[in-house]
């Protein structure tokens, strides 16, 4: 298979090997491809920087083995960089929100009809959302361990909460910063537990007000209050977070019953408890043993659901679900079944050790076989553009850009999160919006030479046609805009 002259010299002399030829060759001889050092094919660096990482910055260079480079970069990851450290923790934040909301409701109940003062809780939530989003983008743009940052975003999408109500607007980012960031390089079971105990998740999926039908609270209450079991968290836990399907409705109910008592202090039914904090309230918990995923779980209070979650986190279906989603995110919309199987095997063999699974993913030859296999989501495209042009996030209205592109941060409207397939994002109007935003980004970037920038951020994948279009652009600004709209930049 010809390499087509992948010249190491700088400038626009890189020639691209036809993608279709490469893909079919690999299907026929995957073992041979596996043995090949991707660096000789010329696009290993692009995959390392742009598909595993969040996008090349102008001075980023991949030295030596692309796979080793990706793995080594993870050492630079910090769960709490300065941008995150400055943010308000969910506990005091939620406390303030609930307090403000409670006061507002009291005032409205008791107050004059003409009182039109706005709800201060809404303003509080909006401000928190804005600060959190700025921090998220800052971390993404500045990171030298962007493979791990990408994994954080991946898990935040896997465990999606959507900021559709004011209270979630205040909290959505905190789940990512407090539950996911510290656990992204740990065990899946720890990650799962941290997420399912976080107030954002408990409130989003209505767990905070789920009461066991035979619990003390249910028995004490009068029938005028509707206190009942809420299955939402249990359902999504099984359907999305762990098994990915194949379970029964009975199992959903059993898990929901086991989860009763898992709540958040300060919320409507538990106002007297420390606000904004996870609390296990025995009086809300459904007594008795539960049956789930083929096992019996004795009554054990809070530990009952923990035991179920631990078993779920080691279930083969969970291993497959997680592996499939990882493979879809890092390899292709429809990844080869054999690599999914390989990842799932590692997952089970190591008891859900996520770094081991990530390593297997990075070392999978299938991940390096086809460049530009994934279409960037709006978030990915925006982050990679800010990284490539080194635009400080606080100077660019990326939030409205993301909304215009159809991916407002932490607002997927569904616990399933954003889809990870090109069909979700590659649409005519969306393309026009990207071109319009590309022009704005280019204007913000000032005087940068796209011809010099392009081969550095798209090493080995820059097409002659694209390079020619960029070089012939009417102005430096248009040239940068073209770079951001290029087929090679729209994909990773």
């Amino acid at each position, binding site marked *: 298979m010809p390499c087509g002259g992948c010249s190491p010299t700088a400038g626009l002399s890189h020639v691209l090997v036809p993608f279709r030829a490469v893909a079919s060759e690999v299907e026929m001889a995957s073992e041979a491809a596996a043995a090949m050092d991707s660096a000789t094919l010329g696009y290993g660096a692009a995959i390392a920087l742009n598909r595993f990482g969040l996008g090349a910055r102008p001075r980023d260079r991949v030295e030596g083995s692309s796979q080793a480079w990706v793995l080594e970069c993870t050492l630079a990851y910090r769960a709490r960089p300065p941008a995150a450290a400055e943010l308000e923790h969910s506990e005091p934040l939620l406390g303030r929100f609930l307090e403000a909301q409670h006061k507002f409701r009291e005032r409205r109940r008791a107050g004059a009809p003409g009182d039109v003062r706005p709800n201060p809780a809404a303003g509080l939530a909006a401000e928190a959302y804005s600060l959190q989003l700025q921090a998220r983008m800052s971390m993404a743009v500045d990171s030298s361990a962007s493979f791990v940052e990408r994994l954080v975003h991946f898990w935040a999408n896997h465990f999606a909460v959507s900021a559709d109500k004011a209270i979630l607007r205040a909290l959505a980012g905190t789940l990512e910063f407090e539950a996911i960031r510290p656990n992204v390089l740990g065990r899946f079971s720890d990650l799962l537990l941290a997420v399912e105990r976080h107030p954002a998740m408990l409130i989003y999926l209505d767990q905070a007000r789920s009461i066991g039908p035979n619990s003390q609270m249910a028995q004490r209450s009068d029938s005028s209050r509707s206190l009942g079991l809420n299955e939402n968290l249990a359902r999504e836990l099984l359907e999305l977070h762990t098994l990915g399907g194949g379970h029964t409705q009975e199992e959903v109910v059993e898990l929901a019953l086991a989860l009763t008592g898992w709540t958040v202090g300060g919320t409507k039914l538990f106002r007297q408890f420390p606000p904004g904090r996870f609390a296990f309230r025995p009086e809300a918990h459904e007594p008795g043993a539960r049956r789930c995923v083929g096992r019996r779980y004795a009554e054990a209070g809070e530990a009952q659901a923990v035991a179920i979650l631990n078993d779920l986190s080691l279930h083969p279906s969970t291993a497959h679900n997680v592996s499939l989603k990882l493979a879809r995110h890092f390899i292709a919309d429809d990844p080869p079944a054999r690599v999914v199987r390989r990842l799932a095997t590692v997952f089970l063999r190591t008891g859900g050790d996520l770094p081991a699974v990530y390593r297997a993913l990075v070392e999978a030859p299938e991940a390096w076989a086809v460049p530009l296999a994934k*279409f960037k989501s709006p978030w990915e495209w925006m982050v990679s553009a800010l990284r490539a042009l080194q635009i400080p996030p606080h100077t660019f209205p990326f939030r409205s850009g993301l909304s215009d592109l159809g991916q407002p941060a932490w607002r997927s409207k569904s616990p399933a999160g954003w889809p990870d397939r*090109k069909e979700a994002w*590659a*649409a*005519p*109007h969306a*393309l*026009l919006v990207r*071109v*319009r935003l590309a*022009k*704005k980004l280019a*204007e913000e970037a*000032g*005087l940068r*030479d796209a*011809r010099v920038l392009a081969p550095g951020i798209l090493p080995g994948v820059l*097409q002659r*046609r*694209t390079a020619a*279009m960029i*070089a*012939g*652009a*009417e*102005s*430096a*600004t*248009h*040239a940068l*805009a*073209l770079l951001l*709209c*290029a*087929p090679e930049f*729209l994909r990773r």
Partner: protein
Amino acid sequence: MSMIGRREVLAGTFAHAALMLPGIRLARAETERRLVVIVLRGAMDGLHMLAPYAEPAYRTARRQLALGPGEHGGAVKLDGLFALHASLVRTAELFARGDALFVHAVASQYRSRSHFDAQDVLESGALRPYARRDGWAARLVNLLPHGQALSLTPVLPLLLRGSAEVATYVPYADEQIPEDLLNRVGAMYDGDDLLHDLWIDALEIQRMADDRDSGGRRLQHLAGLAGHFLADDRGPRVAVLESHGWDTHTNQVVRLKRKLANLDSAVAALKSSLGAEWSQSLILALTEFGRTVETNGTGGTDHGTASTVLMAGGAVRGGRVIADWPGVSPRTLLDGRDLKPTTDMQALLTMVVSEFFGLDPGLVGRNLFPDSRLALSWQGLVVGRGTL
């Protein structure tokens, strides 16, 4: 009547316009002169703006693109050799009154047919691209006591980089995607199955929403604003505007008809908003290079060398075409394809700027174009400062 009084009568909300500008100190510059530079990006075809209609070689080379005087010619006769594109209605009026002139067959010394490189040379005032990171207009501002400059562009152009006395001002975000950018994006997607098909649909959507002339109205609006800011006694004395979309490889007749009309509206808007300061003003419309003499077979022209400089303003001694005209017959062409330049852009600018501001040409040349050895010519294109 004071400046401010008339402003309030004429311009309503634009009273004390310069007060609205962040970054502009309110300081009275010593000079009364106002300079506007309009950068035409994409290589404006000087031969289509100002056509040597009387030369047979012109008609032969330009075929269906050729302009000429007369009802269907698309141009207005200025003298025995040149005709001005009919879109430049207001500019022609100024020409007739002596407030506008054209300098033809002008180019910089750097022979490049790359937009990037040539724009860099045009703006930096160097002899080679990327030799300097500041612009000649910024260096000019540094020569004007208490002088300030304003750029009405989204990005501060190289032309004005290098001076502390510069501000940018863009009154609203431009939501329209420029036509040139659309065309190039489409060309980029040509070989990509997914993007090519999406783009066809995207263009349909764009066409339905498209406001074809918003770019032109925007330039006109910005030009009007520039005039208001310049007219303010305590405002800037140098303003920069820019216009894209001049790279007419295809469909030149239709596209330049519109683009030149846009330019004409901008000049008219400047005249209107400069008010009494028009007599002290000079507008320079410059482009990085010209286009091939011969049409290219796809209804347009390709990158060339020499082009035209438009000068308008009360300070201009106008009503003439200034050119050491080489002609467009095949044996006189540069590289067998381009109009040969006979006036050096930097020499022209040095002479014009020094006369306009009443500065020593040697001083101006050394500061604005320090790397160049300039053979100055074309004196008297503008009324020198102090004489009226």
